């Protein structure tokens, strides 16, 4: 029983870091742009397809596809900002308007993926030499370990970018005070577009990791990832990039340990119950500032 629990905890950390990555990119977008990206899950699935086709057509291993996907998705996000997001600021309720526009986008992307890739679930053909490592009685597939390592590196790089570089600091400054940053001469439009690009680039990378760690993906699962992302960011605090890491790991641990003792359905339900409990105790999330809005 203890070993099972330990295995659940280890899985929880691996899965939790992926969830954290989903949450971080959602939170970067929400924090800076006040956009609730309902289409995030679809972009993640699109990233998984990207890795699949990079491998099938170009013979690229998923690891080499990482920078490629990041750049392609980043450019896509930069462009989409000007098409969809910029106009939202004029709406009388930008947050809700963004939620709906992005919901529309998620329907469009889901339908397009269904038309282009058809409904069957696919999985990445990716194995490493020792297929798994044993630590005592804990089994760890090497692909999962590699995914974990990539997730850690990406999260670390993002934290470095946000806290140690000038554009990253400017980005966090927008989260804190949108008006003041324009006074000090930051090009809000350009930076916002970059942020959306960064968010989607991260979503694309997350998609690759998802395709490495989870058994399969299909056009229908986008909404599940969006929902997980929402839970994670509400747990950690909306618009708080590092809070999302804590939220993701917490949710991953809760889900995976529940999976050991009960079923997948109970595990999901537990995640929602956790969310509701946290929200009722701390309405702004674990790391949110209470009276920020």
């Amino acid at each position, binding site marked *: 029983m203890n070993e099972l629990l330990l295995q659940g905890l280890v899985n929880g950390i691996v899965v939790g870091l992926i969830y954290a990555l989903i949450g971080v990119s959602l939170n970067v977008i929400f924090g800076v742009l006040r956009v*609730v990206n309902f289409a995030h899950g679809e972009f993640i699935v699109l990233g998984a397809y990207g890795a699949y086709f990079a491998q099938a057509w170009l013979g690229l291993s998923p690891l080499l596809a990482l920078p490629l996907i990041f750049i392609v998705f980043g450019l896509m996000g930069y462009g989409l900002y000007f098409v*969809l997001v910029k*106009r*939202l600021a*004029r*709406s*009388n*309720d930008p*947050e*809700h*308007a963004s*939620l*709906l*526009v992005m*919901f*529309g*986008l*998620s*329907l*469009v*992307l*889901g*339908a*397009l993926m269904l*038309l282009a890739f058809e409904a069957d679930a696919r999985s990445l053909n990716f194995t490493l030499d020792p297929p798994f490592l044993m630590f005592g009685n804990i089994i760890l597939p090497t692909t999962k370990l590699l995914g974990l390592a990539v997730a850690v590196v990406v999260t670390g790089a993002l934290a470095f970018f946000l806290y140690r570089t000038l554009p990253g600091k400017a980005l966090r400054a927008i989260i804190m005070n949108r008006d003041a940053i324009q006074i000090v001469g930051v090009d809000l439009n350009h930076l916002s577009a970059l942020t959306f690009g960064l968010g989607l680039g991260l979503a694309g990378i997350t998609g690759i990791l998802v395709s490495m760690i989870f058994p399969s993906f299909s056009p229908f699962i986008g*909404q599940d990832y969006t*929902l997980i992302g*929402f*839970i994670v960011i*509400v747990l950690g605090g*909306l618009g708080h990039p590092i809070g999302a890491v804590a939220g993701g790991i917490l949710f991953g641990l809760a889900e995976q340990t529940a999976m050991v003792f009960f079923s997948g*359905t*109970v595990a*999901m*339900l537990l995640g*929602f*119950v956790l*969310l*509701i409990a946290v*929200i*009722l105790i701390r*309405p*702004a999330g674990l790391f949110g500032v209470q009276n920020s*809005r």
Partner: protein
Amino acid sequence: MTDQAQETREGTDVSLSAPQGSTEKSNHIKFLIWGIVVAVIVAIFLPAPLFASNLSFLFYMMLWLTMATSFNFVAGMAGYMPFGYVAFYGVGAYATGVLYKTFGLPIPVALAGAAVAGIVIGLLVAPTLRLKGVYFGIVSLALAMAMKLAISLMPSEITGGSLGLILSAANNPVAAYYAMFIVLLGALAAGTWLSMSRLGTALRAIRDDSEAAEVVGVNVVATRLKAWIMATMFPALVGGVEAWYTNAIDLDSSFNLLVTAKSIVYAMAGGLGFLVGPIIGASALYGIDQLIWRHFPTLNLLILGVVIIALMLLLPRGIVGAFAQRFSRFRRFIP
């Protein structure tokens, strides 16, 4: 402060500073227009089963009119965006199915049970009303998913498990049609009550500035709760009647996120905050949706998504909202 709030406040100022008679007159015209709209709805849907060949189209038209109207109670009048609105619809469908099939109660009693179930769930999640903005929307969505999972975990002798419930013994489309008609009339009546009484004024005041409303003596919690209960009861009834009409209930269609999406889109397309908004939005868009569905079944979702995006970017206040903005003189006459 948002533009909307600004405008509403200006609107209120005008009517407050205008002589008493003028306000009364504009209220009379408003009421008259609304009366005509309701009369037209009754005239279309009441006799329809006698000669309409496509009962299903009209049934679902009424369904979406009701969903959009009751969604407006929370979104338009109270300023909340419950993204998990489908939860109440699904709970209503399952309450009806379980009461009828598993407990052998007659359909009217089962439908009453659905309304009660909707209200009970609404009261249970009422604490989330203190969340603001998108927090509320996201938590509401999570609650809907939790509800679906909770029902899927119930023993299958009660809920039918993954196969769902079949109510073929109760098959009576015309009776179900009139049940939906009554639910629609109920929703319209509730809308009239919520928007034209003092309660409506209080609701709008809370939506625009809850702190200010509290200062002038509005009981914020109780007022919101009334609108919330109305908004949770009707989708439960709609879900129950739809289950009766189609004779089938299953988890995926009862908790399909598209139910929320269409309620929101139809209500917003017409114009949130106006009684006629959801009516106009639902009739126009449901008609378009059916045309798309008939001609391009595979592209249905794709086109729905494009319509949502275009609508939000080009017409964020909806048809009625845009009209009220363009012809602000007539604003106070629009119900």
